[in-house]
C-alpha cells in the first residue's frame, strides 16, 4: 500500500517519468493465479450450491446417469486446483515483489494505515473528493482481501478437505492432515453447515470486489481492471 507520492517512478533508463506514470504491480504469477483462482471459485460456488440443493431428479435407470457424480467431481477438482493455487500464491508472497505480500497481512500496527483506512472509508461514503493513489491495494481493499479472501479461502480449503477425507477414508492423507477439524465439530453435519456459510462470505466478497474494481477503474483515475491483466498500473492524471 505504497503511497504513489512516496516512490520514485522511473523508466528503464532511470529517468523520471513526468506524466502518465506506469508501475509494474502485479507480476505474471499473481495475474495467472488470480484468474485461475477466480474461475475455480466460480465452479466451486455453482457446484457447491448444487451439492447442498441438488437438481431435480433425472428419469431412467441409475446406470445411465452420473449427474451428482459429475457435479461433485467438478467441485472436488476445482477445490484441489484452488488449494494448489493457494499454496503457490503463498510461496510467491516470499518470492514476488512487495505487493505480492499485501493480501497476507493487515498492518494494524502502523498509524498511517488507520489514517489511510479512514480516508478510504470516507471516499466510499462520498465524503472525500478524491481517493489517495496506491500502487498496490488501498488499505480498505487490503483489509477486505485479508479477511474475506485469504482467511476465508484457508477456512474453505481446510473444511473442504476435511469433508473430502470422509469419502477417502480414515487412513487417507486428507484425514491425517485435516481430520482435526472433527475435534472442533464432532458431527460432520456441522462442518457441512460452516463450509456452506463460508461460501456466502466469499459470494459477498466477490460482489463487493467486482463492484469496487469496476468503480475504481472509472472513478479513481488509475487503472484497476487492466492492471490485473497487464500487471501495470497507469495513473491517468500524472503523479
Amino acid at each position, binding site marked *: 500500500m505504497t503511497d504513489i507520492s512516496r516512490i520514485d517512478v522511473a523508466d528503464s533508463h532511470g529517468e523520471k517519468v513526468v506524466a502518465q506514470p506506469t508501475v509494474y504491480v502485479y507480476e505474471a504469477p499473481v495475474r495467472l493465479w488470480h484468474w485461475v483462482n477466480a474461475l475455480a471459485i466460480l465452479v466451486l460456488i455453482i457446484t457447491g450450491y448444487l451439492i*447442498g440443493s441438488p437438481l431435480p431428479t433425472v428419469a431412467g435407470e441409475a446406470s445411465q446417469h452420473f*449427474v451428482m457424480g459429475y457435479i461433485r467431481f467438478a467441485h472436488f477438482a476445482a477445490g484441489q486446483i484452488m488449494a494448489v493455487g493457494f499454496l503457490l500464491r503463498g510461496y510467491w508472497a516470499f518470492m514476488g515483489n512487495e505487493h505480492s505480500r499485501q493480501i497476507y497481512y493487515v498492518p494494524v500496527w502502523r498509524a498511517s494505515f488507520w489514517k489511510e483506512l479512514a480516508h478510504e472509508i470516507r471516499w466510499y461514503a462520498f465524503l472525500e473528493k478524491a481517493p489517495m493513489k496506491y500502487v498496490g491495494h488501498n488499505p480498505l481493499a487490503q483489509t477486505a482481501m485479508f479477511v474475506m479472501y485469504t482467511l476465508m479461502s484457508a477456512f474453505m480449503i481446510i473444511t473442504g478437505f476435511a469433508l473430502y477425507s470422509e469419502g477417502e477414508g480414515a487412513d487417507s492423507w486428507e484425514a491425517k492432515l485435516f481430520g482435526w477439524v472433527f475435534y472442533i465439530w464432532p458431527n460432520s453435519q456441522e462442518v457441512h453447515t460452516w463450509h456452506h456459510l463460508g461460501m456466502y462470505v466469499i*459470494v459477498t466478497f466477490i460482489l463487493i470486489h467486482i463492484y469496487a474494481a469496476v468503480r475504481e477503474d472509472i472513478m479513481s483515475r488509475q487503472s484497476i481492471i487492466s492492471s490485473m491483466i497487464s500487471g501495470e498500473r497507469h495513473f491517468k492524471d500524472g503523479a
Partner: protein
Amino acid sequence: MAAIETFYDVIRRQGVTRRSFTKFCSLTAASLGMGPIGAAKIANALETKERTPVIWMHGLECTCCSESFIRSAHPLVKDVVLSMISLDYDDTIMAAAGHQAEAILQETKEKYKGKYILAVEGNPPLNEGGMFCIDGGKPFVEKLKWMADDAMAIIAWGACASWGCVQAAKPNPTQATPIDKVIHDKPIIKVPGCPPIAEVMTGVVTYITTFGRLPELDRQGRPNMFYSQRIHDKCYRRPHFDAGQFVEQWDDESARKGHCLYKMGCKGPTTYNACSTVRWNGGVSFPIQSGHGCIGCSEEGFWDKGPFYERLTNIHQFGVEKNADEIGLAAAGVVGAAVATHAAATAVKRIVSKNNDHSA
C-alpha cells in the same frame, strides 16, 4: 491356590456345549473381521484367560440399548454373551435386587480391582448435585465415579453415554452429561447409536472381554471395526445419489422406485454407523431400506440439529431458525442492494460534480 475361572468354565457350567462354543468363536471372529485364525485366537483366549467381569450400569436412559442387546441376531451369540456378562451386575436383568445387588458392586471392586469392564447405559445428570437420577439412594454420578475408579475400561453404550442424547437436548435442564465429560482417567470406548446395533454391541463386548483390551478406536473414541464408514458410503441407494435421482416427496414416483433420500433429509452422508452393512433385526432391513432417511442417531448432537426431513441444517446462532442458504442469500442480498445503491449514488455524484466543473 484355586485354578482361575475362565469364560469357558462359566459357559460350560451354564449348559452351552463345546460345539456351540466353537461355533460362537467362529461367528464372532467373522463379525469382527478377524480373518481365518481369529476363531482359534478367541477360543484360546476364552479357554485360558481369567474371565473379565462386566458391570452394567444404567443412568438417564430409555433402556433401548439393553433391548437391542438382548435381541442379538444369533441366539447362540445372545446365550453365550448374556451368560458371560449377566454373571455380575446389571440391575435391569439380574436376579438379585436391593442390598444383595449393591453388595456385588463392592465385591467386584475389591476382587477384580483394575480388571473389570464398566458398561454404562445412559448418562449422569449433573445439575442440583446429580439428584435428577438417584440409583440405590445415591446420585448416579457418584455411583458411576465410584465404580469407574477401579475399572479397567469403560464402555459408553449408545447416544446417551457417548453424546448425551435427547435428555441433553437444549436447554438440558438436568445437565445430562456424556461419560467422557465426567470420567477422564480411564479408557472409554463409545458405541453410539440410538440404540446401537445388537451385533455391534455383542461384538464389542466379546472383543474386550476376550482380549482384555479395547479394539482400535477412531478419533472420537468409537471402534473402527464398526464406525469407520458412513451409512452413505455403503448405502444400497447410493447409485441413485450419484445418478441424481432423488425422492422429492414421500409419495412421488421416486419414492416408489426407491431413489436416494438425500433431499428428504437423509443424514447418511454425515453418519458413522454400520446400519448399511450389518443392518437391523438379524440383517432384515435398516431405516433407509424401509424408505425413511437416516436421522443420524449415532452422531453427536443429532437431536439438536434441526429437522430430520430437510437437507440443510437449521442454524440457531442468528436468533431465528434459518438454514445456510437462507442466511447467506439474505446477507448477499443486503450487500447486493447496498452495492446497487452505492453505484447509483456514485453516478449521481459524478453527474453533479461534472455539472459543477462546467459552471466553475
